[in-house]
């Protein structure tokens, strides 16, 4: 759960354990001395991810540049039995890429090649550090794109997306990362190289690929990733509906889903978000007096699309929209989206710190849950901005605050927990796309039974029996059966 950022000492050097000393010199000989960082000042960047709550400094950070180097790095760490944390661009929002001071960060951002694009079969093979938006750019000459589009897509990596099973606005129609990964080559924590999934047709047997996607760096490191590419739609239409009551906007979402039209994306922003966006350089022309706006994108074949646009427009109005605007051209469409994509940045303007939260509720519960979040915000006196994937019921209640004020910070934490409890009570879950990481460990027992958490521990132990890969994340250590049965043993002290 959230805690205040801890100051990290800026000592010039820190004594490493003998195993880490040995590992450091072996890693340096693999990647060269310039591709390994060990001084605290150099490691600052690798001491946080996109969530501001946590800071943890790794012992070392190493940056392999080739597949062979990556494999050699993981094998050296296996031989020295040193824990490690794979890291892409560090844009994650759950503290998942942070490492304790006994662990090595393996930075994958230099392994960024797009190895091949096969337009005929609509797929690409990339290195784990390839940037999401870069893949779409490379695929565009074939009229294709990579569909999952997290807000951080201009920076985040495909390897990180695989680790988190990342989503994004267009996952409503096109599916999340899992639905787009065909095959992986993975180096397991013990140094074994395995191929999961298949590039040559179906793969029989246990769905190890499905198990690996979303495993948050706990099952190994992807060496290469084969992904599906999607044909660019012939036509795209974007609508903006504005509402004086957010529950009306939520009703419009339900009506559109029920109509059978599957929008490419259906995003909602509430009043505080709208006003933050409009006061920023990302102003998109949203009505600042609205309680909510709904951004609906329809795409696909040109034929029949106008009929769907007309239907969605009618449903938006029937739910009480004050106005519905259909973007006339690509420039207007891009502007409408810019406000959505840059909403987090815009909110960053209104206060020094921002907590981006992630939860999912059944779509029919959106009106109740939004009302409950509003009530919690008022009761705790915090500013909650809601900007989220309404079509999936994937909420992002974000709280803007000043972390230097301990009293305000405490209220933020109280509000966050209350919001999460409300989402769980509505039949929802604690994360739709950001992952559990460090941030949501304590919420796991609220949605899963002991037996289920233990089953997750067992699965992890298949891939990483020593629990050296991203230790201490995803499943709380106390949930693992051998820990529960023998809490006083040394083995029980291993991180989950």
């Amino acid at each position: 759960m959230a805690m205040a950022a801890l100051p990290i000492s800026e000592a010039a050097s820190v004594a490493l354990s003998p195993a880490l000393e040995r590992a450091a010199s072996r890693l340096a000989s693999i990647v060269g001395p310039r591709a390994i960082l060990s001084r605290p000042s150099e490691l600052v960047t690798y001491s946080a991810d996109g969530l501001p709550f946590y800071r943890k400094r790794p012992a070392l950070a190493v940056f392999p540049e080739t597949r062979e180097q990556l494999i050699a790095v993981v094998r050296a760490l296996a031989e020295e039995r040193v824990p490690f944390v794979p890291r892409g661009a560090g844009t994650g929002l759950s503290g998942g890429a942070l490492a304790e001071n006994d662990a090595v960060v393996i930075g994958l951002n230099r392994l960024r090649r797009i190895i091949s694009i096969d337009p005929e079969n609509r797929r690409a093979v990339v290195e784990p550090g390839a940037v999401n938006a870069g893949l779409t750019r490379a695929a565009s000459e074939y009229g294709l794109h990579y569909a999952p589009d997290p807000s951080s897509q201009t920076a985040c990596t495909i390897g990180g997306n695989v680790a988190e099973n990342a989503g994004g606005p267009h996952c409503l129609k096109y599916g999340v990362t899992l639905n787009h990964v065909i095959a992986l080559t993975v180096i397991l924590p013990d140094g074994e190289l395995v191929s999961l999934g298949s590039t040559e047709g179906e793969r029989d047997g246990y769905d190890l690929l499905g198990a690996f996607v979303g495993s948050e760096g706990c099952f190994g490191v992807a060496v290469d990733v084969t992904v599906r590419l999607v044909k660019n739609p012939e036509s795209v239409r974007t609508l903006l509906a504005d509402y004086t009551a957010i529950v009306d906007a939520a009703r419009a979402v339900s009506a559109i889903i029920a109509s059978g039209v599957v929008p490419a994306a259906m995003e909602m922003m509430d009043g505080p978000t709208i006003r933050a966006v409009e006061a920023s350089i990302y102003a998109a022309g949203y009505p600042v007096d609205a309680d909510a706006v709904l951004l609906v994108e329809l795409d696909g074949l040109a034929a029949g699309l106008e009929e769907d646009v007309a239907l969605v427009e009618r449903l938006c109005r029937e739910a009480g929209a004050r106005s519905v605007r259909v973007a006339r051209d690509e420039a207007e469409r891009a502007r409408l989206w810019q406000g959505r994509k840059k909403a987090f940045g815009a909110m960053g303007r209104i206060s020094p710190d921002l907590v981006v939260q992630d939860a999912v509720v059944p779509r029919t519960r959106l009106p109740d849950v939004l009302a409950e979040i509003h009530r919690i915000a008022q009761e705790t006196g915090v500013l909650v901005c809601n900007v989220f994937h309404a079509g999936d019921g994937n909420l992002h209640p974000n709280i803007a605050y000043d972390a230097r004020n301990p009293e305000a910070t405490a209220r933020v934490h109280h509000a966050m927990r209350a919001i999460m409890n409300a989402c769980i009570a509505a039949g929802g879950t604690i994360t739709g796309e950001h992952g559990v990481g460090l941030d949501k460990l304590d919420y796991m027992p609220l949605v899963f039974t002991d037996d289920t958490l233990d089953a997750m521990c067992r699965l992890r132990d298949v891939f990483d029996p020593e629990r050296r890969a991203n230790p201490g994340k995803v499943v709380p250590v106390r949930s693992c059966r051998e820990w529960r049965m023998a809490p006083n043993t040394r083995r029980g002290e291993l991180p989950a």
Partner: protein
Amino acid sequence: MTSSDVRDAVRDATAARAPLRIAGRGTWLHAGRPVNATRTLSLSDLGGVVHYEPGDFTLTARAGTTLGELTSATLPHRQFLALDPFGDPSGTLGATVATAASGPLAYAFGGPRDNVIGLEVVTGDGAIVRCGGRVVKNVAGFDLTRLFTGAWGTLGVITEVSVRLRALPAVDETYAMAVDDRPDQLSALIAALRVASIAPLAMDLASPLLASRVGAGSTTTLLVRLAGNAASVRAQRRVLDTFGDVHDMPVDVWNIVRTAEPASAIVARLSARPSRMASVWTDAREAMAGVPGAMMIASVGRGIARCVLPETTPDAARRLARCDATVIFEQLPAALWKEIAPSPVSDRLSRDIRERFDPAHVLNPGVLGEAVAP
């Protein structure tokens, strides 16, 4: 019957060292692989919809609920579960998920792994595991849902399944077109269809025998299912017309396709990257040449050919096994499994998963061709 009864049965089996064969209704999708079991655990009494909120487009049902019962529950709300595995509607949801069985609609909607959002499972050590949830987007914890999907019951007995549903399209039409299936012609046709302005729910190539069963003539036939609003389907139909002589088919054609296989047939799926579809089709056709009753249906967008042979033709099955494709047998005479269908779970990770989820080997031992302790 409840999940606790299933748990008790699994614990009893462990205590008695009496392995279980896990069955849904036992009417279809029976694995041909010999299972080394002394008892059968039937889930046919574990049926019924547990939770269905139409506005959420999600449904939770017990594993023994049949696909037909699900259709009856969802149809009044103009919704459907987009899983159409081969077999008749008396097959169960649990069996569909356990075998990761899919059908023609997988082209547009994916298979069970893409449509199942949560499971309740009794693992081999008698624990009740509830993974995933009832929401359509969920990354909380390691993905046990995917692990159990397609595991053939060897890691746990599926007792409850949550799925996402889809809205019935306003218009749903199926068209048939005779095609020239010589390799070059077929290859060119498939390539052209893949870039055409159509977005089919299903697009399958049926061999002449199967085509005649559905009343589409007696040559190799392409079946295309188009859906959406009326304007969209009309326009797509016009695009299809540019490829050949297109006939309207009753939408029921898909049910005939799914139930055309004799219960005892040899069934193999041959797959490759989609661009090799024509070559896989040609190889499979040659492997089955001259076999009376042989049929084939291929999901051309996915690059998967489903081959059906009479059980009395092991040599044709052997020829299929040697084709240049990924060959997965769904059903074979008992004696042939060892010879031509290697176990897909013999790798270190899979063996270890099995040990950790079914340590006493009481769940469907042998069904995946794995070595079974005597």
